[in-house]
């Protein structure tokens, strides 16, 4: 049974220019201990779908879904109080900007211990001991000293480790990491990813990794969902996805990886993700797609079967393998 199960999730934002659909009919299944990656460009709705799962969207957002369950709880019907018992304890999340995601007015120690007090009801001494243990676990040197530091006194990498310590403080069953390394230096990025994978091995939690970096995906994930303009356009285990992408967008993303470049110039995907005011009528990727024809531009493609990676495409790629097998 899956830990997180989402069916037909859509998120709409009320803006002054009218309603804007940021997430469009997304399905998702994450089992215990899974490492699931969500890839896509900025604005593809990958963060928003996870924020909706956490219940962290602003009041301008409307969330609809046929099913949204986490660990047996129906996330759609939870009272705010019941949701707060799960969020931060069994279901945790870390964010892209570690510097601004920690409260500048409180020491990092306070911010770690706070979660311990609210969810576990630990006493003062226990909280301190657990906080030290956590800091040690996430690789913060000299934890006794660091507990009393303010966020602005630590580096970005250290702050992200603090964020991770807060997130895993109550031993969550699922940790959502929203581009945890984007704002960090390249050398730190690898360390943080290694840390996340190590923690997942140690604690058995599931991990959802939101990223726009296909390289990161290749190194870490088991399954990959590719999002485009709010839709999930393809989902496969990581090996088959890299070997035989079915959606042209996935193929284009992979072709843009430096390691896979066959020419001197890296192939880029022309154009940008459609926004609120230029959403195509048919396939959302059609304006940027090499293979698009009139059908693509007028008829939105439904997702295909699991053997074709649920690809939303009228003309999926690499179908010959299936025929051969």
């Amino acid at each position: 049974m899956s830990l997180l199960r989402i069916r037909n999730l859509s998120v709409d934002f009320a803006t002054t220019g009218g309603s804007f659909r940021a997430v469009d009919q997304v399905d998702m299944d994450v089992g215990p201990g899974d490492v699931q990656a969500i890839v896509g460009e900025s604005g593809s709705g990958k963060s928003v779908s996870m924020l909706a799962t956490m219940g962290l969207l602003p009041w301008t957002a409307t969330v609809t879904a046929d099913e949204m369950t986490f660990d047996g709880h129906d996330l759609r019907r939870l009272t705010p109080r019941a949701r707060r018992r799960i969020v931060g304890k069994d279901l945790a999340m870390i964010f892209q900007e570690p510097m601004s995601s920690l409260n500048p007015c409180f020491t990092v120690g306070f911010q770690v211990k706070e979660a311990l007090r609210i969810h576990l009801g630990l006493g003062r001494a226990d909280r301190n001991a657990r906080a030290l243990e956590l800091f040690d676990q996430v690789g913060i040197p000299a934890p006794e000293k660091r507990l009393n530091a303010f966020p602005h006194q630590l580096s970005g990498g250290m702050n992200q480790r603090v964020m991770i310590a807060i997130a895993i403080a109550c031993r969550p069953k699922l940790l959502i990491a929203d581009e945890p390394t984007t704002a960090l230096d390249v050398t730190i990025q690898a360390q943080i990813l290694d840390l996340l994978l190590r923690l997942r091995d140690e604690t058995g939690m599931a991990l959802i990794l939101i990223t726009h970096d296909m390289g990161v995906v290749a190194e870490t994930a088991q399954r990959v969902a590719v999002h485009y303009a709010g839709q999930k356009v393809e989902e496969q285990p990581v090996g088959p996805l890299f070997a035989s992408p079915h959606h042209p967008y996935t193929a284009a993303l992979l072709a843009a990886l430096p390691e896979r470049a066959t020419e001197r110039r890296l192939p880029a995907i022309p154009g940008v993700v459609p926004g609120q005011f230029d959403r195509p009528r048919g396939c959302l990727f059609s304006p940027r797609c090499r293979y698009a024809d009139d059908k693509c531009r007028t008829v939105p493609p439904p997702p295909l079967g699991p053997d074709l990676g649920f690809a939303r495409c009228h003309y999926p790629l690499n179908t010959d393998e299936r025929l051969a097998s």
Partner: protein
Amino acid sequence: MDHALSEEVVEQVARPGRLREFWFYFRENRGAVFGLWVFAAFVFIAIFAPLIAPYDPAIQFRAHALQPPVWQEGGSWQFVLGTDPLGRDMLSRLLNGARYSFYVGIVVVTVAASGGILIGLLAGFAPRWLDALIMRLMDIILAFPSLLLALVLVAILGPSLTNAMIAIAIVLQPHYVRLTRASVLGELGKDYVTSARVAGAGLWRLMFVTVLPNCLAPIIVQAALSFSTAILDAAALGFLGMGAQPPTPEWGTMLAEAREFILRAWWVVTLPGLAILVTVLAINLMGDGLRDAFDPKLKRS
């Protein structure tokens, strides 16, 4: 990108233009629109007061002194809002009072803003020592409570509406200096200024053509808000006997004249104050609307 395709994509809602977007946000704020209408009415009255007012504001109908408004026992349609202790028509005086308040607002804001913007621009572009000197000077003016400084300035210059306006303009001007300087310093670091510099724009061009237009939004908001401050302070000075002198039908001065009748004739006290409040409130509503429409941070989503 394939052009034939792109044209087909850009079919739906076009992105709204900047001015229309501004008006959209302003119009969405119902208080601001209401304020705008009241302010428009205020300006209209200020301009055409002598034509609208039933009487000359200085004519004394001694037989009708302290006559209450029409809806109260003893009132008559002859003096709709009653008369003051000297038998002058309240309505005519209130309508004419709008002229003085409007005049004060316009003059003070024009003087304070143009002076403040110039000095602020100068401070923003000047070498450090000159900048520091200017800002210390402004600190000195700001160390005095505005009304007290205005009061003392009027004491030196002699009590009159003109001197009150000069004093208020001097007191309000440092706010423009600080605001302009802060926005200038904020803009100077941006790439478009650097590129204008690299393109060889002269200092004056840089100041007035490149940077100033991008600093205008907060200054416009400040102008609206200090318009109301000017009206309030002028009325306060009038109330203390240091602004417009009787028999000028300035609202603050009218209040001061009416003080001793406070418990006998509510209308001579209530109405001028209400006029000040409504005017100031309308302008502040408008100023808030301007600020919200200019400030993208507070916009929705």
